[in-house]
């Protein structure tokens, strides 16, 4: 049972254009959603997050949108840069007394110069 789904394994975008990465979830108990970025042979690094009580969070070129009714979130990168080429993981967290984070399978972003 995949609670967090990233249905696009890869995405290719031209430098300077917008990259939109999508994520769907099934568990309405999730209270935080996060995006992580991963380069080859490195561990994931935190990029941006959003609380379930908000619908948008912006940090520089990165904006995350949350649509709770659709159980959908998206990450927008504007403008895209070649250095943004990486795998992006969507993740969702719930505090269950310890807490657990569920990760999606990732989307590989290629930004072409």
């Amino acid at each position, binding site marked *: 049972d995949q609670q*967090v789904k*990233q249905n696009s*394994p890869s995405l290719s975008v031209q430098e300077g254009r917008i990259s939109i990465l999508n994520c769907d979830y099934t568990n309405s108990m999730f209270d*935080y959603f*996060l995006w*992580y970025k991963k380069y080859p*042979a*490195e*561990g*994931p*690094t*935190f990029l941006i*997050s959003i*609380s379930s009580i908000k619908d948008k969070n912006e940090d520089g070129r990165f904006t995350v949108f949350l649509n709770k009714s659709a159980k959908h979130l998206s990450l927008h990168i504007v403008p895209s840069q070649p250095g943004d080429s990486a795998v992006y*993981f969507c993740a969702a*967290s719930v*505090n269950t007394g*310890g*807490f*657990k*984070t*569920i*990760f*999606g*399978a*990732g989307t590989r972003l290629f930004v072409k110069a």
Partner: protein
Amino acid sequence: NAGVTQTPKFRILKIGQSMTLQCTQDMNHNYMYWYRQDPGMGLKLIYYSVGAGITDKGEVPNGYNVSRSTTEDFPLRLELAAPSQTSVYFCASSYLVLRSSYEQYFGPGTRLTVT
């Protein structure tokens, strides 16, 4: 400040062998985690710890054991290695703050092959 460090970076095991993956963090984080990532998949939580002396199972704990005797260290033990445990293993840590985003800091990973 080294963050989260993991050793070894690579390891090849024969079926039935055992080993310990080491993880250390120097950020005084109370939470620590072990994940595995199989090709084309997301990270699956193996075990986590909310503080020294306290550990709990994640999604895929079978075949693994952990201990947390100090805040800094969270080793992962494989007792009888099986080919299904071939994966990349990531250790992570976080500091739980009320109404925080639960962001985690990851180590560089250990690539394990069991043949």
